[in-house]
Each structure stands twice: as structure tokens, then as C-alpha cells.
């Protein structure tokens, strides 16, 4: 039974991580886009005057989408139409099963690996699920029985076929280097150093593979330079044109889930997953006490700075709006002060004197944080790229997929194989 509980806990953690990141990513997308374009972005929705720099907007959006009327086209294919958003969402979420978000954690004497399912063929599983990901889009586009949605669906299929091959080829190089299909093996292998100073990350040993992989991931998630299935300016909104209300929200969330999956895959395959460079697990455990103390002090300093900034804003913007929003800086300052106080209180517990068990726990948590941090960075990269690059034209997309990435992927594989055979 404990193994079932363990798995459940891990699944819940992954779910919370993904679903929790969705609103944050939506927020980051809108706010980031705004700042990149010299706008202020969403800053209106508030709960009792607290706007969280626009973070309340995703919540309001979700509420709106859930309670909106579900407008459906008459000539839809009912079953497929209703199934498509759920399929998209389910498939998007199911990739997480094989991605390790930490090494292991020891609870009550049990050493629990931090991955939901440690498949022997994890990397292939990822590819398989990713290849299914297109069905949500295709089914939705076809079942809505609209020319634009249909074009979106067709584009999604063609794009998927073209880029999945490059994705697989890029991954094969990596599999050769780490001699395994098991993702935990690949991540664990990236903890080493080469030449004594370079972390043996996938991006270091397979730079071309990394470029191919990240491009393919962008294409598979239908994100900006490859968002032709949506293509607002050409086919209105593509496959989800005829969806509204909760079903639209599901498609929307599925896109962000795909993004998180993509980010997790990139960090797991090419950026060492949960590995912290130059700080392998034994080193982490040995210096856990100092590490924790340093972290707490850092938290105190940073939250102190934030609190001061908020206090200054409270002073400067006194009665700026003349409504509940005026309270916001003071509430913010209070919260940051509380964080600082909490960290200071934790210091009283003498964190530099933790036992070996505590050290292990700290190391595990540090590694989880490292993984989440990498995922957040790559998710941000998705957003960042979206607001930087223009969309490909369809023929350019096909040209890139078949005439550039495919040969490069093959070449990468051959070279890797030859080098591996020689070394």
C-alpha cells in the first residue's frame, strides 16, 4: 500500500506543479508581453484592492470562462467536438509521469525516487505521448466543421509529422551519449563533470541536438514561431475557433501544460534536470547546514528589500486611486516583512546544526527547487520567444522541418555514434 500512497503523492505534486504553473504562465505571458512592448499589461482585477501585479486576472479569466455560455456550432460532430478539449488536456498532462523532478527523498526510512513512473523506455514514452498530442487539435478542428478550424487541424497534423522525426533523432543522440532510454539514467548521468569543470549536461555534449530538440518542442507545442495551427492573422484562431467557455479554457490550458512539459523535457534532457552544477548530491548533503543558513539569510535580505520598496511606494502613492487599491502597497510590505520575520525565526532553530537526515531532506528539496527553477526558466523562454520572433510562413516551416532539421538530426546522430564508438 505505501507504494500506492507514494505514487499518489507524486502524482498530486506533479499535478499541482503543472496546474499551478498554468495561471502563473498566463500571467507571465500577458505581463511579459506587455513589458516587452512597453505597455503595463493587466493591472485591474483585484480582490479587496490587492492586484498582485495582475495575478488576479488569470483567476478572473478562469471564472469568466467557466461561467460563460457554451456556444457550439450546429453542424459539429458532437462526440468528437466534446472529446477534443479533454483529449488535448489529458495528453498534455500525461507526459509528466516519466519526468524525474528530484533524485530521491527519504521519508520514514524509505528511499522514494522522485518520479511517478520510472519507465525503462521513458524517453520513447515522451515521444509517443507527444505524438498523440496532435489529436486534440485535429479532432477539435475537424469536429467543429468550420473551414478555419479544419485548416488549423490539417496544419497541426502536417507540422507534427514533420517535427516529430527531428525530435526523435535529436533525442537519439542523447540516448547514445548516456546509453539509456530511461530518463532517470539520463538525468543522473548529467551530474558528472567533463574535463573536471564542465557539467556533463546534454546541452554541452549535444549542442546541435539541443537546438534541434528545442526547435521541435516549440513546433510540437504550437507556440509562436510555429503557431500555424492557430495563426490568428490567417485562419482566425485555427482549431479552437468554434470553442467557447470551459472547452476553450481546456484548450488554452492544454497549450500551457504543453509548454510546461516542453520546459520540463528540455531541462531534464539537456540541462541536467534536478542536478545543480558543481554541487553533486554528496557535496550538498555535506554542506547542508551552511547552505540552509545562507538561504535563510538571503531570504531575509531580499524580502527586506522588497518590504522597503513597498513601504516607499505606500508613502509615495498615498491616496493615488482613492479606493481599495491604496491599501495594496501596505499589504505587500506587511507580507514581505512577515516572510523576513519567518526566515529570521527559522534562524533561531540553529539550522547549521542539522543531522544527516535533515541534510538529506535539504539536499532533496534543493534539487526539486533546482528542477522547478529550470522549468520556470524554460517556460519563460517559450513566452520570451513568442514575443520576439515572427511566425513562419507555412512553406518555410516545411522547409525548415524537412530540409534543414532532418538532415542535421541525421548528421548529429551519425557523428555522435562515430564519436561514441571511437571514445
Amino acid at each position, binding site marked *: 500500500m505505501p507504494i500506492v500512497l507514494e505514487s499518489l503523492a507524486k502524482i498530486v505534486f506533479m499535478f499541482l506543479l503543472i496546474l499551478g504553473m498554468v495561471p502563473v504562465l498566463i500571467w507571465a505571458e500577458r505581463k*511579459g508581453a506587455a*513589458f*516587452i*512592448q*512597453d*505597455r*503595463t499589461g493587466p493591472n485591474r482585477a483585484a480582490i479587496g484592492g490587492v492586484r498582485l501585479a495582475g495575478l488576479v486576472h488569470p483567476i478572473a479569466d478562469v471564472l469568466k470562462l467557466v461561467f460563460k455560455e457554451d456556444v457550439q456550432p450546429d453542424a459539429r460532430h458532437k462526440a468528437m467536438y466534446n472529446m477534443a478539449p479533454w483529449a488535448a488536456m489529458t495528453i498534455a498532462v500525461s507526459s509528466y509521469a516519466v519526468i524525474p523532478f528530484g533524485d530521491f527523498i527519504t521519508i520514514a526510512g524509505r528511499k522514494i525516487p522522485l518520479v511517478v513512473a520510472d519507465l525503462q523506455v521513458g524517453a520513447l514514452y515522451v515521444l509517443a505521448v507527444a505524438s498523440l498530442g496532435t489529436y486534440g487539435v485535429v479532432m477539435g478542428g475537424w469536429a467543429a466543421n468550420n473551414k478555419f478550424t479544419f485548416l488549423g487541424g490539417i496544419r497541426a497534423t502536417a507540422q507534427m509529422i514533420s517535427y516529430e522525426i527531428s525530435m526523435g533523432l535529436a533525442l537519439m543522440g542523447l540516448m547514445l551519449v548516456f546509453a539509456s532510454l530511461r530518463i532517470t539514467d539520463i538525468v543522473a548521468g548529467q551530474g558528472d563533470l567533463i574535463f573536471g569543470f564542465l557539467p556533463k549536461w546534454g546541452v554541452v555534449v549535444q549542442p546541435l541536438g539541443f*537546438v534541434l530538440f528545442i526547435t521541435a518542442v516549440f513546433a510540437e507545442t504550437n507556440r509562436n514561431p510555429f503557431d500555424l495551427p492557430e495563426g490568428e492573422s490567417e485562419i482566425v484562431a485555427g482549431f479552437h475557433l468554434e470553442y467557447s467557455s470551459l472547452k476553450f479554457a481546456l484548450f488554452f490550458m492544454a497549450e500551457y501544460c504543453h509548454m510546461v512539459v516542453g520546459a520540463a523535457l528540455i531541462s531534464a534532457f539537456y540541462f541536467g534536470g534536478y542536478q545543480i552544477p558543481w554541487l553533486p548530491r554528496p557535496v550538498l548533503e555535506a554542506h547542508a547546514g551552511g547552505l540552509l543558513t545562507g538561504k535563510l539569510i538571503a531570504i531575509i535580505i531580499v524580502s527586506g528589500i522588497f518590504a522597503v520598496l513597498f513601504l516607499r511606494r505606500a508613502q509615495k502613492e498615498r491616496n493615488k*486611486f482613492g479606493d481599495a487599491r491604496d491599501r495594496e502597497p501596505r499589504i505587500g510590505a506587511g507580507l514581505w516583512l512577515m516572510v523576513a520575520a519567518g526566515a529570521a525565526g527559522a534562524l533561531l532553530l540553529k539550522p547549521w546544526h542539522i543531522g544527516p537526515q535533515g541534510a538529506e531532506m535539504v539536499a532533496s528539496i534543493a534539487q526539486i527547487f533546482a528542477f522547478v527553477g529550470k522549468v520556470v526558466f524554460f517556460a519563460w523562454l517559450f513566452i*520570451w*520567444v513568442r*514575443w*520576439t*520572433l515572427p511566425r513562419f510562413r507555412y512553406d518555410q516551416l516545411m522547409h525548415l522541418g524537412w530540409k534543414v532539421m532532418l538532415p542535421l538530426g541525421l548528421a548529429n546522430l551519425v557523428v555522435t555514434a562515430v564519436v561514441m564508438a571511437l571514445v
Partner: protein
Amino acid sequence: MSFEGLPAKATGKKMTFLESIYLVEIVRGLGVTISHLVKNIFATEAMPTMQYPEEKRVYSDRFRGRHHLMQREDGTPRCVACQMCSTYCPADCITIEGAEHPDPSIEKYPASFEIDLLRCVFCGLCEEACPCDAIRLDTGIYEIAADDRAKFVVDKEFLLHNKSDGTR
């Protein structure tokens, strides 16, 4: 309109090798956008965005806002229902019904004068067409909102007094 200084057609410039592999240029592009982002995080106040309901742009006196029917000194409309404005109106948004005025010195007056603000394009041609200077777009009101289409059709009384900031 002249296109002087612009190339007559695409230059067809060949990309250099570095450009053709995109990567360097992509990274440069990312640098451009992130610099904007960072700049704007630290200088939120300097952004040109206007916090609209609280702050409002000051428009020129010649801004064409919602219409306004001019009154004579006794409060009756200056309009004589000649329908020049509705004839000239490119959006066909003005509907006027003329009628005999009880005062013999006035002869014709608008029994009804309606403007469909949803159709209006605020071009100001009605002002140009009016022989009596009876219609002006000088209220400066541009916040025209309502929750019902019918409310965008404003009548003579509304246009004569023009007190509300929205629609009727």
C-alpha cells in the same frame, strides 16, 4: 503619396552565413526584447501607457466627439430639418422628420431628429453640410457606451441638452 527614399521592390539581399542559421539573430532579438522588459520593470512610471479611467487624454478643441444640436436663444433647435446632414452622411446614421412649426416665422422644424451613434463614423460631414450651424460635434464626449443597441439611437431632446456622459 510619394515613395521616395524607399526601395522600389524587395532588395533580395543575400543573408550571410550567420544570419542564415538564424540562431545568432534570434539571440540578438531576444536581447532586444528582454532589454525592454528589464527597463520597464525598473521604470514602470516611464511607460507611455495611460491609466484610462483615472487619467484621460486631453484632446484638441477640434476633436469630433458626440453630436450636439445647437439651440436658438429661446431653446428651440436651430435645425430646420433640411436634411442636408442626413443626405451627406456617409454612414446614413441621421434620421430627421420635418414638420410645420406653429410659429409662422420658423416654418419648418425637426419633429424628430435621431442619430444612430453605432453607425456614425464621426467624420464631421454633417457639420460641414449644415446651413444653419445646427449640428456640431463639439461636445468632446467620446465615451459612448450602453448595454442595449436601442440606447445608441439618441433623439432630439438628448442631442439638444447633451448632459449625460454616455448614451441615453
